[in-house]
């Protein structure tokens, strides 16, 4: 039957309804600040928004969006290839290219469209793609559409990448290698110096998704490649405007002049409306701010370390290093759902992540930190987790 394949999900939704808990698509009824809102009738600290620098609520970005809406209207009502290229879009492309110190840029309407569109277009039938096993769903969707041979390498494992490139023989030199800067679910950072060294040895092209690392890592906020000092080894950088830049949209930048021809071959760019001018304007302002105010990154990392250290001290199973994404891994689904509910009741909103969105069979309570969080808010998040431990809702390494 057509709908049989959805039964497992329907059963899960019914289970959540039975428990009177709605972790997916929780409705935000009011935004109080970048880190506080009314969600499902409750005032909560927002600790699952990817709003790493808090710029979604920055008055300068809001003003830029307001001015653009008044000047340009609410939407472009067309594709970039038709009537949807305003001078705002062109200026953002120039500015994002300049930010990365490269010559070419494409701005997309979403981050998903950027990575999916690029991955589906760069390689085609007869080509080969090697992607990190924990790649984002947009990357998997893109490579699947490409028609290229798709090979996974073990997550964050340069030796496994090298082994697989070695097996390819002469094809390795033309392979497209795909990795991310910070991985979205567990917050772990790619070993980019080692991956770049493998690429130098075997050849190929490196595509790096900096969605969660742009604004968070690097001397000027360009991301994990800048932090690792290997930007010259990256052929294509992709990223999003919906996290550190606080809006929505995506980009790909490169020094390869071919990017200008590729632009006209990407369905996800051609056959969708371009971003509203207000979004482009606030993104341009955010980009200016992250360049001008490196202290935002310092505050983000102070907060990330504070949360990570606090949860680790409780004995919770967090990742190997501190990161703006701090995930607590659990094995039992009902227990994870109960923990999510308990956090909400204590005024803390986090993301509940279930397979296949999580990179293993485990379930996640995924926290994302913002530069806009106060230390009191970070401490309140830690205190909420402490009650999960004291009430026995969550197992700790000390108890295990």
């Amino acid at each position, binding site marked *: 039957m057509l709908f049989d394949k959805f039964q497992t999900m329907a059963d899960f939704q019914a289970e959540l309804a039975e428990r009177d808990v709605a972790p997916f698509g929780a409705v935000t009824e009011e935004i109080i600040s970048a880190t506080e809102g009314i969600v499902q009738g409750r005032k909560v600290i927002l600790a699952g928004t990817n709003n790493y620098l808090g710029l979604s609520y920055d008055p300068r970005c809001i003003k830029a969006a307001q001015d653009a809406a008044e000047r340009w209207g609410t939407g472009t009502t067309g594709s970039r290839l038709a009537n949807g290229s305003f001078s705002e879009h062109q200026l953002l492309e120039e500015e994002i290219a300049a930010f990365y110190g490269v010559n070419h840029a494409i701005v997309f309407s979403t981050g998903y469209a950027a990575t999916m569109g690029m991955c589906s277009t760069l390689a085609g039938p007869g080509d*080969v793609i090697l992607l990190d*096993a924990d790649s984002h769903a947009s990357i998997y969707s893109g490579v699947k559409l490409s028609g290229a*041979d*798709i*090979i*996974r390498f*073990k997550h964050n494992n340069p030796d496994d990448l090298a082994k*697989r490139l070695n*097996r*390819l023989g002469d094809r390795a030199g033309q392979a497209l290698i795909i990795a991310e800067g910070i991985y979205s679910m567990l917050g772990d950072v790619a070993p980019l110096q080692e991956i770049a060294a493998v690429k130098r040895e075997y050849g190929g092209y490196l595509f790096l998704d900096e969605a969660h690392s742009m604004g968070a890592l690097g001397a000027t906020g360009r991301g994990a490649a800048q932090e690792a000092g290997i930007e010259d080894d990256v052929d294509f950088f992709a990223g999003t405007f919906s996290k550190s830049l606080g809006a929505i949209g995506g980009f790909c930048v490169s020094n390869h002049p071919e990017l200008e021809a590729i632009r006209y071959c990407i369905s996800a760019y051609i056959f969708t409306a371009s971003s509203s001018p207000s979004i482009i304007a606030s993104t341009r302002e955010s980009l200016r701010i992250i360049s001008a105010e490196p202290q935002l990154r310092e505050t983000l990392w102070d907060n990330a370390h504070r949360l990570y250290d606090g949860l680790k001290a409780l004995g919770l199973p967090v990742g190997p290093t501190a990161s703006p994404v701090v995930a607590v891994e659990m094995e039992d689904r009902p227990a994870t759902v109960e923990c999510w509910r308990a956090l909400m009741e204590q005024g803390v909103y986090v993301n509940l992540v279930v*397979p*296949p969105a999580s990179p*293993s*069979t485990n379930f996640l309570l995924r926290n994302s930190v913002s530069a806009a969080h106060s230390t009191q808010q970070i401490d309140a998040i830690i205190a909420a987790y402490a009650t999960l431990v004291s009430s026995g809702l969550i197992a700790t390494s000390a108890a295990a």
Partner: protein
Amino acid sequence: MTDYQEYLDFLYTTLETQNKNKLELSETTALVADMGLSSLEVMEFIEKIEDHFDITIPLNILPDVNTIGDLATKVKELNL
């Protein structure tokens, strides 16, 4: 060159560790429908085959693979 039966024998041996339902494995045993392997388990299984035979198995073949026999056939085709 590895023949079909050699691939098949390796698949049987390796899958025994994931044979939660204690099925009698055969060429017609379905990896997902019968054995209940998750997508993650299928990926890990593919990695084991690649490493054992030192071969490359693109993920593109998976939509055409339902049974253990399908997989042995595909792997042999890829490495002729």
